[in-house]
C-alpha cells in the first residue's frame, strides 16, 4: 500500500492554503489585536472583559483578547510566554516582580507617552513612583490597597470581647484572642490567626521599629533580635491559646478560601483591604476591617498604601502605543472606573475615585474608608523587593512553622531566618 499525492493536486492544495492564509493576514492588517493577561478570580475577569468590550466599541479596529489565571499559575505562564517571545501586549504586574521584569528588558518604558497618551496627572505621586524602576515608568498602578486585619464581628460579640481599635497594641490584641478562645462559643474557633509566617505582618512590625524587610539596594534590613522577638511574641500567643495551633495555621494556603477566618477557625485574620468584598462573600457573619496592631501606643508608620497591581506593556509588543491607550482608558475612563469598582483597590486617579465613591456598595465603602483612614499608621512606600524576595517569604513561613511545631526555639528561629535570607539574597 502506498499513499500517492499527485504533483498537480499537491500544487493546487498548496495554492489554496496559501490564498487562505493571505486572507487571514489581510484581515489582520486592518485591525490591531491586543492580548491582555492578568491573574484573579472570575468576578475580576467579568469586570475586565466588560471594560475591554467598552474600549472596542469606542475604538473600532482594535480587538482585545483577555486571558486570566490564578496567582500561582500566572507567573509560570507569563515567564514562559516572555521566554518564548510570545508575551501578551498588556501584562498585569505585581510590585514583587516589576523590578525583575523591568531590569531584564521585558517591559516597555512608558514615560515618553506622558502626558499626551498616558495622563497620570491626578494620580498620587508616590503611587506613580511605585511603578518606576531605575528612573523609567514600567507600570501604571490599577489601585491602592493596604494590608489589613479582618475581624469576624459576630464572633467577637458572642465572646463578649470589644473590637480592637486603631490604638490597640499587639499585647492587648493577644489578650483579646485568648479571651475569645477561652469563651469557647464556637467549636474549634480560636481568637486570632497565627501570623508569625505572614510577610506583610512581619514587615509592618519591622517598620514600626524603624526597620524593614529589604533595603533599597536589595540587602536584608532587619537583624537577629528583630526576628527572634517576632517569633517569640507569637510563641507566647500560641502558648496562651490566643492564636490557632500550628497544624491549623498550616492549612492556610495564603488565599482567601483557606484563611482561618474563612474556615471559621479564628475570629481575626490577616489579609489585604481590596480582598474584603471576597472575604465577606465567603462568610455568613458580619466582617470588619482594621489595621495591624501597634507595638506600643506611640509606634506608627507600619502600614503603607501599596499599588495593589500594575498594568505593564510588553517590550515585545508590536503596538505599544495602542496598548498604552488601552491602559490609559482603563485607569482614566469614568465608565470603566464604575465597571471596575474597587476590586483591584482604590482608584489612583482623584477624579475616578470620586466617580467610584458615589456608586460604592456597603462592602466597597468599608475598604475605601479603611485605606483612607489609616492616619499616622501609614508610612512611606518601601523600595520594591529584590529578586529572591519570593524565596525569603517562603523561608519566613517555613521557620515560623518550625517554631510553631516546637522544632526550633524563637531565638534560634530568628538566627536561622537572618542567615538563610542573607544567603538567598547573595545568590540572587
Amino acid at each position, binding site marked *: 500500500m502506498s499513499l500517492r499525492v499527485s504533483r498537480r493536486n499537491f500544487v493546487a492544495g498548496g495554492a489554496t492554503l496559501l490564498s487562505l492564509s493571505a486572507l487571514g493576514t489581510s484581515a489582520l492588517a486592518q485591525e490591531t489585536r491586543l492580548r491582555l493577561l492578568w491573574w484573579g478570580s472570575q468576578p475580576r475577569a467579568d469586570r475586565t472583559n466588560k471594560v475591554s468590550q467598552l474600549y472596542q466599541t469606542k475604538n473600532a479596529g482594535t480587538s482585545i483578547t483577555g486571558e486570566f489565571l490564578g496567582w500561582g499559575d500566572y507567573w509560570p505562564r507569563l515567564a514562559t510566554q*516572555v521566554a518564548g517571545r510570545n508575551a501578551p501586549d498588556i501584562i498585569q504586574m505585581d510590585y514583587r516582580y516589576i523590578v525583575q521584569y523591568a531590569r531584564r528588558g521585558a517591559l516597555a518604558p512608558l514615560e515618553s507617552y506622558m502626558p499626551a497618551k498616558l495622563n497620570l496627572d491626578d494620580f498620587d505621586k508616590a503611587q506613580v513612583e511605585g511603578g518606576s524602576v531605575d528612573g523609567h515608568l514600567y507600570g501604571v498602578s490599577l489601585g491602592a490597597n493596604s494590608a489589613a486585619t479582618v475581624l469576624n464581628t459576630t464572633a467577637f460579640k458572642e465572646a463578649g470581647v470589644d473590637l480592637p481599635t486603631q490604638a490597640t497594641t499587639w499585647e492587648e490584641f493577644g489578650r483579646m484572642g485568648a479571651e475569645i478562645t477561652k469563651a469557647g462559643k464556637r467549636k474549634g474557633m480560636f481568637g486570632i490567626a497565627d501570623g508569625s509566617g505572614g510577610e506583610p505582618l512581619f514587615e509592618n512590625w519591622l517598620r514600626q521599629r524603624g526597620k524593614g524587610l529589604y533595603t533599597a539596594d536589595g540587602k536584608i534590613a532587619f537583624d537577629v533580635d528583630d526576628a527572634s522577638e517576632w517569633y517569640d511574641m507569637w510563641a507566647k500567643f500560641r502558648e496562651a491559646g490566643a492564636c490557632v495551633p500550628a497544624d491549623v495555621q498550616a492549612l492556610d494556603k495564603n488565599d482567601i478560601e483557606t484563611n482561618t477566618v474563612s474556615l471559621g477557625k479564628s475570629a481575626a485574620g490577616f489579609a489585604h483591604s481590596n480582598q474584603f468584598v471576597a472575604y465577606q462573600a465567603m462568610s455568613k457573619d458580619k466582617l470588619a476591617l482594621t489595621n495591624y496592631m501597634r507595638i506600643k501606643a506611640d509606634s506608627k508608620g507600619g502600614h503603607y498604601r501599596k499599588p495593589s497591581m500594575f498594568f505593564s506593556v510588553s517590550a515585545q509588543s508590536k503596538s505599544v502605543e495602542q496598548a498604552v491607550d488601552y491602559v490609559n482608558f482603563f485607569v482614566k475612563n469614568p465608565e470603566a472606573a464604575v465597571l471596575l469598582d474597587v476590586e483591584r483597590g482604590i482608584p489612583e486617579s482623584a477624579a475616578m475615585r470620586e466617580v467610584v465613591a458615589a456608586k460604592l456598595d456597603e462592602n466597597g465603602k468599608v475598604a475605601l474608608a479603611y485605606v483612607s483612614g489609616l492616619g499616622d499608621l501609614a508610612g512611606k512606600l518601601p523600595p520594591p523587593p529584590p529578586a529572591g524576595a519570593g524565596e525569603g517569604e517562603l523561608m519566613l*513561613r517555613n521557620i515560623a512553622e518550625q517554631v510553631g511545631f516546637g522544632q526550633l526555639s524563637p531565638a534560634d528561629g530568628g538566627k536561622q531566618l537572618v542567615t538563610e535570607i542573607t544567603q538567598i539574597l547573595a545568590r540572587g
Partner: protein
Amino acid sequence: MSNAMRTPAGAISVESYQGAVAEGRFRRLWNANAPGYLFLLPWLIGFFGLTLGPALISLYLSFTDFDMIQSPRWVGAANYVRIATADPKFSAAMHVTLTYVVLSVPFKLTFALLVAMALNRGLRGLPIYRAIFYLPSLLGGSVAIAVLWRQLFASDGLINAALAQIGIEGPSWISHPNYSIYTLVALSVWQFGSPMIIFLAGLRQIPQDMYEAASLDGASKFRQFYKITLPLLTPVIFFNAVVQTIDAFKAFTPAFIISGGTGGPINSTLFYTLYLYQEAFGNFRMGYASALAWILVVIIAIFTAFSFLTSRYWVHYDD
C-alpha cells in the same frame, strides 16, 4: 540500482560502487517502508519535536544560568556542584521523595494484588467491580481528589470525626509535618487501579490445573499462593514495580495541591518535582531546575537498571 549493475566494475572505484549499491538498497527499503514512516509521522514529529528536542535543550540549559527572559549564560558544572555540595533543600526533597517511593510502591502493589485476587474468584458482574475499583486511578491525579484529601485529613475532617467517636482527638494530619507525607502515601495507595488490572490479567494466565493438582496433594491455600501464584506472577509483579517506582519518583500534583505549592509544612511534602518546579517557575532559575531534572533522570535510570539486574534472581519466566 539497475544502472549501477550495468556499469563495468573497473570503470568506477570500489568505494563508490559499494556506495551506489548501499544507496540502491536504501532507496529500495525506503520505497517499501515510506507509507509506514508516513503513518508514523505524527508520532515522530511529537517524539523529536516535543520530547527529544526539549530534553536535549534542557541538558544544555543545565550547564547555564537562565532566567527565561535574558539569554542563557554558560556556567559549566556550577549547577551540579551546588546541588551536590551546598543545597539543603535538595537533600530535604530527596529525603521526602525516597520516603514516598519506599512506602507507597510496596503498599500499593500489595493492596492491588489483594484486590485482584479477591476479584479473580469468578465473581458475577466482575467488569462492574473492576471498573469501580479502577475509578480512583482515573481521578487520582486530579485537583478535585487532592482537595477531597484535605477535607478528609484536616483537623475537623472525616478521619478525626471517626476518631472522636472512640475518644481520640487527632491532629490535622494533612498539615502536620510528622504525618503529612503519610496522607500522600495513602492517597497513592488508594489509586491502585492500574496495577490491579494488570495483576488480574496475570492471575488469569495461571493454569487452573496447577491449583487442582496442588489441592489433590493436600496443599493449603496459603501454600498454593506461595508456591504457585507468586512465582508465576513474578513477571507481572516486576513490570508493575518498575512502572510504579518511576511514577512515584515523578509524583507532583498531590503535593502541589495539598501544600499550595510550598511543600510545607516545614518541607514535609517537598517532593523532588515540586522543588524543581519552585526553582524553575517560582525563582526563575531554569538552568538550575534543568540540572535537578537531569539528576532525577539519572536516579530513575539507576533504580530501573538495578531492578533489571536483580530481576534474573527472582523473576520467573516460563520459557
